[in-house]
């Protein structure tokens, strides 16, 4: 085992973890300000300049709130479930490549935490583990609304997870790899289309997959218009009805970290990640991820919530067949491309 590499990537991962936490805090501020703007309000602007200290104030408030464990809760699982959500959320970001290797203090350092052969599947696997925080939290609360919210949310997340995974198969066919570093490299080539020189970003060669991924990702992170588990008009707050104080905020943290991680992954898979005009670099990745985050807030401010039967119908009757069609067509085109047809 290479101890030096291990320590370097552990430190990088630790830094990334902390950056994600800070970003997440400011994502809540960004969302509140932006939604307020959409709705012709002002939003939080009292705590510090432009309300910039609001996330800190929220954190202090939540940490000093009472942590209530209901009498008929399954105590151990009730206490652990939100922690599980929180711990798993940032892990997906470890495989995102943030740049090429740089030389620092006479040592070559890769600007990604880890590059594994099954990176994309790893991201999906971490996502599939994420449902445990939801289903166990809902079960352990001992509240009917929580349990119903958890069941709904889990059924939703697993249905869209399928679409999320299958929408990426087209990219795997084109690159022959699951590694995000390889997928990024494939996109850094140029695509010549009708005399036009375009970047080989997969949004151009896999537009249907991009749309499917985007819809599935929003549903997977339980965000509007797919925020049915939290349908407050019917389920109070879904699976976290009984949670309070900092344990509640763990679910909140997890949701926002998931949004950021999915945005980073989507930017890397479809928009060429760090690839961009002029100089390639992490700023392009950040800018692209920011577009997705803006899109999340925009959706929330614009669209009403889906009805549950529409939600499940969309996944199984529209998106799943479309994902399979996308795989079939991509395969045919690729066969023609490599001269096997």
């Amino acid at each position: 085992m290479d101890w030096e590499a291990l320590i370097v990537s552990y430190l990088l991962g630790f830094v990334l973890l902390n950056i994600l936490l800070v970003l997440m805090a400011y994502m809540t501020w960004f969302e509140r300000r932006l939604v307020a703007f959409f709705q012709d309000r002002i939003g939080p602007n009292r705590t510090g300049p432009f309300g910039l200290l609001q996330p800190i104030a929220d954190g202090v408030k939540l940490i000093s709130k009472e942590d209530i464990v209901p009498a008929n809760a399954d105590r151990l699982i009730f206490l652990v479930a939100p922690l599980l959500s929180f711990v798993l959320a940032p892990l997906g970001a470890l495989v995102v490549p943030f740049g090429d290797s740089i030389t620092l203090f006479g040592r070559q350092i890769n600007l990604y935490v880890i590059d594994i052969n099954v990176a994309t599947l790893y991201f999906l696997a971490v996502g599939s583990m994420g449902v445990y925080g939801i289903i166990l939290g809902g079960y352990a609360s001992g509240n009917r609304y929580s349990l119903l919210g958890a069941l709904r949310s889990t059924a939703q997340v697993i249905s869209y997870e399928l679409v999320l995974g299958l929408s990426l198969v087209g990219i795997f066919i084109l690159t022959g790899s699951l590694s995000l570093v390889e997928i990024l490299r494939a996109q850094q080539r140029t695509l010549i289309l009708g005399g036009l020189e375009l970047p080989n970003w997969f949004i151009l060669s896999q537009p249907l997959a991009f749309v499917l991924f985007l819809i599935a990702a929003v549903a997977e992170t339980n965000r509007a218009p797919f925020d049915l588990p939290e349908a407050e008009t019917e389920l109070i707050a879904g699976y976290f009805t009984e949670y309070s104080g900092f344990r509640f905020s763990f679910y909140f943290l997890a949701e926002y970290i998931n949004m950021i991680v999915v945005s980073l992954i989507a930017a890397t898979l479809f928009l060429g990640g760090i690839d961009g005009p002029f100089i390639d670099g992490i700023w392009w990745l950040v800018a692209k991820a920011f577009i997705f985050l803006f899109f999340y807030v925009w959706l929330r401010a614009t669209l009403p919530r889906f009805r549950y039967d529409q939600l499940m119908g969309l996944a199984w009757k529209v998106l799943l067949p479309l994902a399979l069609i996308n795989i079939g067509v991509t395969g045919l085109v690729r066969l023609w491309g490599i001269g096997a047809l």
Partner: protein
Amino acid sequence: MAIEVLIFYLLAGVAIAAAAGVVLARNPVHSAVSLVLSFINVAAIYVVLRAEFLAVAQIIVYTGAIIVLVLFVLMLVQQQDLPEFHGGRPLRRAVGFLLGLALLAEVAAAILTRSLRGAPGSWTPEAVAAVGGNIQAIGRELYSAYMLPIQATALLLLAATIGALFLARPELVEERLAVARRLFTISLAHPRGVDTLQPVAELPAPQDGQLKPAGGDRSLVMARTAEEFTEQPAWGESRR
């Protein structure tokens, strides 16, 4: 090399402890959670053995799908309805114990009599690295040498799809969809004051095609049978 052996024993130890937890926990949900922990440790052992694809497949399929299914079942069924996890009839316990012992003996015999290290195949570590990695090698092998098993798997999954429908919603398979729809329409339409709070014990035993009380000793149930309602067609639905 030594560190890998150490990691293996750590992971294997946790996996076995978690597996023991599955059997020993009194609450079935706790059992399921222990099983998740055990599966994750097994996946980590696969990683140590350089079987990356198998590891993620283990996590995605077993912990991500199958245990979720198990948890769904546990939550859909009321806890009172679950069979006793401990105790039960002595004969059943004895049979279970003997079967477990037989399985243990079988596994032990297999391990002790055969060499675990088979003949080396054509996929040496170098060959795997040459095609790009573990998953690429599996793809090449699976879709060439294992053509028949792959299609057999597809057939099996197809059978499972049909079986799933039959298990979960037999009324659809048995073409009782029309009846179900009629019941649903009526219960939404509420032509007159039909829902009353009344003790379940006073109700006639639920018959086929009739809504059953939801649970508890006093429940909101439909006071009349569906057939009575169809005397006055709801929402202009014509009688058969």
